[in-house]
């Protein structure tokens, strides 16, 4: 028997695979068997109602996409009245994702979500901290710690801190989130990028800058997951460019306990199910019985010497 369950703090998931926030929505139950997911992560909501960023919101880049959606949000009332009941039909735990522009607002929003049907709260720390310098909370250890601490005081749900990769040393932020009381880390959101149309000399995104996501970012985010896993004892949910069983395993070997699939959902809508389907066979092939046997087991001191080298 192969055991795919993983434990994220107090929460036990049937398997380690879930969508990245904002890359999965109502309607996907028409495509895949949602009950098979490890968890459902909802799109980030903000305290207020927002339309999101101007168009165009999307352009393609090598190995991925560049998008700037700007968190359109119908607010917590809609979320509790519509989204939570919608997902209540499905077995996997629902993770709410929240964003706010001050520590105070973060706490209030988390408190508002203390309603049945929400299993954990993922804190999207990539949003601008308007009280301090307008830059993302997760670019600064103190802001990260304060936000997480205040949210922890405002809810009894497990709190996952979703970090931004737009930092010099992600471990400083990981440590701060841990100190703030985070139950898990999600590593990471999108790298900030831009693109210019050389015919019109205009930015390709209405917002000029946006997030680069997809396969191209995998090596960078994987490295951050590895660094965080060395730095803090928290479960880590890896997220960045995962599009296959191999990518998911790579993240777990680097130290992730679970994984989120984002952009790949748009390319192969069954990616998450395909990964879940392939995991038992992968484990069997390696003589393992539990998916947790993969976590952090990269053999770091034995770099691959290409086996095909003519000189053995």
């Amino acid at each position, binding site marked *: 028997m192969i055991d795919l369950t993983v434990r994220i703090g107090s929460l036990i998931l049937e398997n380690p695979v879930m969508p990245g926030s*904002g*890359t*999965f*929505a*109502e*309607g*996907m*139950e*028409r*495509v895949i*068997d*949602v*009950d098979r997911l490890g968890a459902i992560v909802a*799109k980030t909501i903000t305290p207020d109602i927002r*339309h*999101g960023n101007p*168009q*165009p*919101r*999307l*352009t*393609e*880049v*090598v*190995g*991925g*996409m560049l*998008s700037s*959606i700007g968190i*359109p949000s119908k607010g917590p009332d809609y979320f509790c009245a519509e989204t939570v009941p919608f997902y209540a*039909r*499905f*077995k996997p735990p629902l993770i709410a994702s929240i964003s706010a522009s001050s520590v105070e607002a973060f706490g209030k929003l988390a408190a508002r979500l203390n309603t049945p049907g929400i299993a954990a709260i993922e804190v999207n720390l990539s949003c601008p901290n308007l009280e301090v310098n307008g830059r993302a909370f997760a670019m600064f250890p103190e802001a990260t710690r304060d936000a997480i601490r205040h949210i922890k005081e405002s809810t009894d749900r497990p709190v996952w801190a979703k970090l931004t990769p737009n930092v010099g040393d992600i471990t400083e932020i990981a440590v701060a989130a841990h100190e703030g009381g985070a139950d898990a880390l999600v590593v990471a959101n999108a790298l900030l990028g831009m693109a210019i149309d050389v015919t019109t000399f205009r930015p390709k995104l209405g917002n000029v800058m946006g997030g680069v996501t*997809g*396969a191209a970012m995998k090596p960078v985010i994987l490295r951050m997951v590895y660094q965080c896993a060395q730095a803090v004892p928290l479960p880590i949910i890896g997220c960045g460019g995962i599009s296959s069983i191999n990518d998911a395993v790579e993240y777990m070997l680097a130290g992730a306990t679970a994984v989120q699939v984002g*952009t790949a*959902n*748009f*390319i*192969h*809508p*069954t990616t998450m199910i395909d990964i879940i389907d392939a995991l038992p066979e992968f484990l069997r092939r390696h003589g393992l019985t539990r998916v947790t046997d993969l976590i952090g087991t990269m053999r770091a001191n034995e770099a691959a010497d290409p086996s095909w080298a003519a000189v053995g």
Partner: protein
Amino acid sequence: MSTLSPIQPRPIRAEVCRVVFNTPLHGPYRHLAVTASATALAAMPGQFFQLLCPGQGQDRHTLRRPMSVYRVDHARGQLEFLFKIVGAGTRGLSGLAAGDELDIFGPLGQGFRLNMQWRHIVLLGRGAGMATLAPLAETAIARGMKVTAILSAARPELAVAADHLRAAGAEVRIVNDADGSAAPEWLEPVLRQIVTEQGVNFIATCGSGRLLRLVRRLHQEFGIDGQVALEQPMACGIGSCFCCVRPFVVDGQTIFKRVCQEGPVFAIQEAA
């Protein structure tokens, strides 16, 4: 799904199909057919699929490409697309040969809504936009409606789907930029004449902002129902990503709707 929702929405699938033919048409256009499952063949006029276009040579693209259903051939179990080669994705599509695989995801979006009372409908399409309108002709004619299709193109020989529409029983008119007949100054009187002389219940349009505005004027003046199929760059195609939004005016307020989910077909009065 744990419990059934009251009205079971139709399933949507990503499936790997076989190419039956991929025929070069005039100019940059191609006519592509694949064998598909019953799920895919349930596609309605105005709905679309997200095609996983293969790469070609040094072209590298990542996302799927949206393509309207051009025709459903229920007898042969085939789904047909009509596309224009414009960039990496459609270049990749154009390289497909009979027997090759193509991964399609759909059917997606809200198609055209036909009212069974209508007697005469007009399809007003520009360029590849006509590919989106074409299946409407078959459906409407099968229900006893008269269909007039006005094909707008840069040059007359570039008009899309003319033979197909004629074969389906539509009255086809081709207007073009070369002789000026596609210009609004020329087209609007022609259309007004059709409206006043023949009576028109409904106009569907796709492929041009000018045509959209023209249909809106006729809607406002004569109360003719109108629907427009819009386009927008898409990532997911199924409402998850909010990349494909466009502004719409609803009750005097501008709101964003997802072209892939609330559309691609919208009532003419709301498309801003």
